């Protein structure tokens, strides 16, 4: 376990880590060496990121530290332009008065994950690295780069002429950015609007359809294999929806060692 911290000295001193010596990132050789063995990233300087950094960020589970509204604006910009993607492996931690900004980016709270940046964080990470946020069953075996590829395909398929209002089940809410561009999405619960689209893990299909009967689209991210086949998912959607359903799109990415496939199924309802 090795955790690399990208950010300015000011933020490092804010985290008052006496025993952490950040690698001098103006010296590329030592920075690259440190990255080679890293398994986790902490990004605090969202303003200072370069194109090379995104290659690393999209490989490793990352904590994004927001210190101000400006950091959030940069995060939104990177997601919007397709450079970044928030997966169940990522966390957003707010330092300072970022709470007021939850109104303009209500999805931040999906990526809290109970992680706080206290001085003990680095010590605790050495012993116990953070895992995946609650996700549909089997998703904790899928690495971040695979999820990023999944997101690229899903976002291209799920484009709306308007900002979709999205409701998601408990298990699928951290996949919101893997299914839609999260900066273009309205969160149904937080913003009190009737949902247009649902994200539901296979085990949540019935519950989310009965809770939101007016939705017209259902996205089901699932690990498809012999036990949970596409036919079974289709039967469950068709039975629970009580109206005509149409499978618009299937994105299948990456075969896992046990021959199961990561798939995103997009259903049109009614």
């Amino acid at each position: 376990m090795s955790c690399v911290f990208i950010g300015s000295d000011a933020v490092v001193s804010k985290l008052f880590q006496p025993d952490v010596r950040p690698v001098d990132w103006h010296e590329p050789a030592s920075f690259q060496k440190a990255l080679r063995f890293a398994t986790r990233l902490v990004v605090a300087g969202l303003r200072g990121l370069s194109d090379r950094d995104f290659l690393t960020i999209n490989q490793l589970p990352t904590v994004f530290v927001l210190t101000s509204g400006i950091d959030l604006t940069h995060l939104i910009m990177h997601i919007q332009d397709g450079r970044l993607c928030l997966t169940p492996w990522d966390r957003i931690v707010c330092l300072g008065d970022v709470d007021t900004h939850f109104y303009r980016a209500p999805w931040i709270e999906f990526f809290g994950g109970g992680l706080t940046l206290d001085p003990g964080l680095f010590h605790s990470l050495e012993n116990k690295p953070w895992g995946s946020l609650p996700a549909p069953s089997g998703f904790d075996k899928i690495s971040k780069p695979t999820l990023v590829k999944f997101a690229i395909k899903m976002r291209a398929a799920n484009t709306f002429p308007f900002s979709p209002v999205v409701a998601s089940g408990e298990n699928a809410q951290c996949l919101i950015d893997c299914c839609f561009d999260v900066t273009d999405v309205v969160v149904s619960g937080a913003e009190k609007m009737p949902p247009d689209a649902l994200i539901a893990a296979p085990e949540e299909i019935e519950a989310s359809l009965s809770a939101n009967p007016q939705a017209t689209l259902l996205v089901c991210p699932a690990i498809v294999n012999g036990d949970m086949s596409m036919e079974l998912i289709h039967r469950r959607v068709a039975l629970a929806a009580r109206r005509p359903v149409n499978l618009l799109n299937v994105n299948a990415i990456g075969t896992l060692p046990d021959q199961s496939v990561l798939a995103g199924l997009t259903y049109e309802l009614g």
Partner: protein
Amino acid sequence: MTVMKCFIVCNMFPALVSNVVRAPGLRAEQLAFQARPHFDQVQYLMLRSRYDLLCRGPQVTSNLTAHRDFLVIDDVRVKDFLNRQPPSVFVFSQPEMAGMLSPAIKRHSVVYDILAPKELELRSGKADATQIATAKRRHQTFLTFADRVLVNGEKNRLLFEDDLAGQKEVVTNPFCPLIPHSDSPEPPKRDHILFFSSAQKWTQNTPFLDAMAELMATKSDVKAVLMSPLKHHEDPESLAISQLIQMPNVRRIKSLSYPAHVSLLQRCAGVMDWSIVNGERVNSTSTRLIQAVGSGAAIFGNAGTGLDAFWNGYPGATSQDAPDTAKLEAFIDCALKGTFAPDLKRAEIWNRELLENPTVFGGL
């Protein structure tokens, strides 16, 4: 006994079948509502070519619901369809469906509904001369063959005065979309402010957005929603929008589906949309503002548009010149306090009388 039928020819989806609804779709719904007491059956009609055009593209636009009142007919079958129907009434909103007109006039009655001054819009949008000439020619054709002409408000009637001089029947029928009522037992709290960036390329609302950016920075207790796509650097309002999207009390949303938009309007105390009045704006009516009034929100708009003759008086505030922050702040405070409630009540009565107006379709 023959069945009296009325067909509303659509060039956009009504809310009955789609959740992407524009002004012509809302107008079609209004006309259908007004026609229902006078006919045995009222149906929407769309040409196959138009339908395909609207459904094209990689987007998830095909969220269409089938409904027996919404018919799509193939372009080559139009003649057969029209000949098979008993004498009916065909309502054309906007003159785009000229292909249907010539078979229709033989046996049926034609109602021409002028929703917006198309020619002026095209001129303001700097369309090419052929396009303008086509719009003008179609407009004239429809005027020649229409049994009844509907115009959107008094101001439009004045604008088309010369065209309408030879018409037998002209009915003023201002735009008034139907507003689905919220099904929640208690009405939601109206504590939001909604404002927009410019929708058409010929409208210009930079002064308004600049003032809003200045104001929202100071009024951090007011929650506002800015409905706007991201603008490019060459757009004049991009500076104001990039200031606004960084404020913690401003939420930017590109646009919303119809049900979500309606639910947002029901939580808004005030809706603001201002742009510089130009040759086209003088006669135009704003769908955004009309929808807002329908759902009970006070509005802030520009003085001197087609809306002046609506609702027996404006339910909100207007501004002739570019609004300054003081003016906007006064409106927001009044709207949140509910000062405009009597005006909104009057507007609601005006809207209801309009929807129940029997002269629009009576006697056809």
